Each structure stands twice: as C-alpha cells, then as structure tokens.
C-alpha cells in the first residue's frame, strides 16, 4: 500500500478546499498527487490496497459535524452524507415509510460493513467488475482500450450488464442506489466555491457511452452533503428484491425496486428500477407504461416484465439474468397490486 498523508477535515468548506481529484479521475489518469475524499473508507482502501490508486492525501470527511443526521418530516427523508447503512436500516421512518429502501439497505453487504459504510460513499463507490478491480487489466474505465468482460470466449461476464452494454459491460456496485432511484431521491452537492446544488439521482449516474472514465457526475471538489427522498403518499406501495448467488451475503446478480401510488388496484404513478442490469441503475420506462393508469393483474405484470427485457443483449455467460429479472419484476408488480 502506498504511503499517504491524512487530512482530518473539520467542515464542509475545509474539505472541499483540500481535495483536488476524484477517485475516478485518479483511476483513469493517475496524477500522482491526488487528495481525495474518504468517508467510511471501504472502497477507497480497497482501491489503494489493490494499487489501483495512489493518493497523496486522504481527506477524511467522516467526522465533519452535521453530516451524520437522518430526519423525516412532511417533506420527506433527509439522510446526511455520513449516515451509515446500519443507521438507515435501524431508522423508524425508513422501516415504516420506505419499505423498499429498508429492504435494499438491510441486504447490502454484511452487518460489519453496514456499520462502516456511509450513504455518500455507497453511492459514489466504483463498480465491482473484477477486471476493473484487477491491476492486470487496463480496461476502458482505467484508460485502456478494451472491455475484458465483453469477450465472448474469455470474458468472465456472469455478473455483468445485459442492457446498455455496448462498450463497458460493468454494473453499478450500489444496490442501495436502485431503491433510492425508484423513490426519485436526489443528492445535495457542495462544490469548491461553496455553491450547493441538488441533483436528482436520475441525473447523478453517468453511463459509459457518455463518459467511460466515471460512473457519476461528481467533479473533484464536489462533496455530497445529503441525500433527500420525497415523502411517500399514504397510497404508496413499494417493493425491493435482490437476487444473489450465496444465501449469506453477496453482490447483486439482479435487483429490482418498485415504488407505486395505488388507487384501489389501479396504478396511478410508478417507477420500476433495475440494478445490476446496466452499467448504471436504470428505470424500466416501457414496463412502467404497461401498468400505468391500469389495474395490475397477472397478464399485465407478465407483459411489463417481458417488455423490461425487450432490448436486453445478454453476454456469453449471463443470459440467466433475463428470466431472473422478468420473474422479480412480475412478482414485485403482483405484490404491490
């Protein structure tokens, strides 16, 4: 592990002025003098241990006062950047009002890791694609000229993308993001000039065809300060399911979140989001249309699930994901109906 210095940031302004690079930029084009943010430190340390980044300074934002609160009122849920996944899991409002988010958080990582992982770090962590995580594989995302996973014979692509996978076929690591996207959450960001902006999660993730060097819009001095999630209606129903290989804990093979407003059995508003399907968490817009303003029944649920996978282009080893997604989407729709 390379040596680095440590800056213990005391305020948001202090932190944004100390940092000079993102982890993504450092992976793509190492500067050798990066000062990067760290919160829980799990992903940062993982990348440093693997020798994929060699930061000069770690700017610790974990103890900045005021970023560790979680609150709920009529306007919705506000989760400070440093709130841990365990704290979200244990929050009463999350348990009672945001069932899909609760389910997603409770099934992310391990109990130990949930005690350490912060929500901001979770959303900004890099993909777990094993080629990306290996220093022996200079892939697109690290400034290289190929996607190793895509190769039809040698690519170990069982966990990879089946949608929007023309270039890099990695999938987004955060399964919590799938649920937050379904609730139409947004991220509050403060930049180096101390200007704050609120970015909907739908605009936070960056797909490889837009810019393969990054997975989110964060610029070097952008600090996430808070995640906000609108208050669900009394008629809101939600669903989340994550399919994994091992029963104990694992990264997602396929996860689906559904948030819908129901009037009787008619669906008046709906978001269906898919994780581990594409390089970023995505909405299944066409599937939503099948059930919007309709009664959700077996036939429509089946059709919506089919439509969600219509444009799928499975790789050599992951066609199993199609029926998997189809069955979770169908199951989820029938459950909220």
């Amino acid at each position, binding site marked *: 592990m*390379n040596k*680095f210095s440590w800056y213990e940031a*005391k305020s948001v302004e202090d932190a944004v002025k100390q940092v000079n690079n993102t982890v993504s930029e450092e992976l793509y084009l190492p500067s050798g003098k990066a000062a990067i943010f760290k919160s829980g430190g799990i992903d940062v340390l993982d990348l440093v241990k693997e020798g994929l980044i060699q930061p000069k300074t770690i700017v610790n934002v974990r103890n900045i006062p005021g970023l560790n609160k979680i609150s709920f009122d009529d306007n919705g849920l506000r989760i400070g950047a440093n709130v841990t996944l365990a704290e979200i899991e244990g929050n009463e409002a999350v348990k009672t009002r945001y069932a899909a988010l609760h389910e997603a958080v409770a099934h992310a990582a391990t109990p130990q*890791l949930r005690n350490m992982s912060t929500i901001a770090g979770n959303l900004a962590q890099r993909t777990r694609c094993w080629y990306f995580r290996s220093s022996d594989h200079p892939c697109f995302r690290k400034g290289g000229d190929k996607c190793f996973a895509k190769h039809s014979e040698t690519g170990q692509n069982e966990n990879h993308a089946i949608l929007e996978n023309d270039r890099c076929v990695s999938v987004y690591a955060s399964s919590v993001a799938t649920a937050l996207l379904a609730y139409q959450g947004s991220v509050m960001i403060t930049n180096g000039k101390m200007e704050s902006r609120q970015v909907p999660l739908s605009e936070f993730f960056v797909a490889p065809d837009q810019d393969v060097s990054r997975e989110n819009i964060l610029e070097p001095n952008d600090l996430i300060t808070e995640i906000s999630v609108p208050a669900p209606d009394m008629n809101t129903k939600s669903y989340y399911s994550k399919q994994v290989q091992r029963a104990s804990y694992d990264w997602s093979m396929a996860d689906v979140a559904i948030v819908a407003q129901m009037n009787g059995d008619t669906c008046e508003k709906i978001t269906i989001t898919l994780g581990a399907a594409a390089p970023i968490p995505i909405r299944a817009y066409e599937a939503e249309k099948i059930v919007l303003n309709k009664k959700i029944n077996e036939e429509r649920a089946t059709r919506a699930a089919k439509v969600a996978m219509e444009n799928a282009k499975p790789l050599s080893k992951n066609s199993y994901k199609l029926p998997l997604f189809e069955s979770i989407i169908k199951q989820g729709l029938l459950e909220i109906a």
Partner: protein
Amino acid sequence: MKKLASGKSKKSISRRGFIRGAGLTTAGTVVLNSGVLAFEHKESYPKGDLIAEGAVEIKMKVNGLSRTLSVEPRTTLADALRDQLDMTGTKIVCDRGSCSACTVYLDGKPINSCMTMALDVGQQEVTTIEGISSGEKLHPVQEAFIEHDATQCGYCTPGMVMSCVHLLKHNSNPTLDDVKHATRGNLCRCGTYPHVFKATLSAAEKMK
C-alpha cells in the same frame, strides 16, 4: 492551546491528542498545520489537521486499557492490533472486508478491522476477541464453540465468536435465523456453520 472546533464528533482525532502524540513521537512527525492555526481566527470556517505520511503516536482504548501505538495514516486497525499490540487473536484472511475474520467492535458495534484505518478509531472503544473472555474464564459462546466442535482450522473463529457474542448481547432469545443473520458476513471455508449455529443457540440457553 486553541480551542477545539465546536461540534466535534467523538470519533475525530482530537487536536490535544495529536499534540500529546507529537511530544511522544520519535519515529515520525506530526505536522500540525501551523498556517491553519495562525489563520483560524480570520477564516470563518473550522479547519482541520494534516497528519504527514510517516509514523505518528496515537492513544487507543483497547479492551478497557489506554494503549499507545505508533501508526501511519495507511495502517489498518487490524495491522495495528496485531503488529503493534501483539494482539494476534484478530485474524486477517481476505484483507478486503469480505470474510469478517477480522471483526472487532468499535463502541460495541462489529466492524471489519482490515478495512478500518487506525486513525479512524479516535476516541472510540475497541473490543477484540481478547476482550471477550474474562481473564482465563471463557465467554459462554467460546465454551459452546468448544463443546459443539464449531471450529476446524480456526481462522474464522475469532470473527464468528465476535458476531455471535454481539448477537446474544442484543438478543437473549435468538432463533436459528437470527444467528444466521448475525453471521452473514462471516465466511468459514471449513464449513463449520451448522456447529456455529448450534453452539450459539446453546450458549443463549445457558446464559438465561
């Protein structure tokens, strides 16, 4: 001495701690950003401390004792415990947060010490497997592990015990599913799981 920035969380490394550390340090240097100190009253926002990349002495509360350690910013808690304090009960297996062999508690919560920086501990209390027994007297969970043959090669065992002891502390009447849930992160390549589950349930009975 300058006052500490207000609202300081208890997890942060106190400036006083650093200055004390600086006095003790021989191996490395603590760079107190003197520019920061000088400018602090002019600027409106609280500024932090830079700790240079070499070794620095810190104090850490481990199993009820205050210990002095020499760590670098890159030193993990697992390495600090094993290499600095010779507390080798905490095992390092994957070193990536995926097996939980290195589980210790920070302020009572199980975490992976291989993915926690020593500098992140701050004022939090560390509890390791060595702090689970009382002297030579094993914890009921440890005794049950022996009785139920819940250990093979033993690499995962300290982490398993930490997860199970934590469970019983918060749930005196666990179901099999509760035990499974609590040990979700603990991987055992020897496959001792059924024995671990039985041992924990029997320890729970005995502790009633």
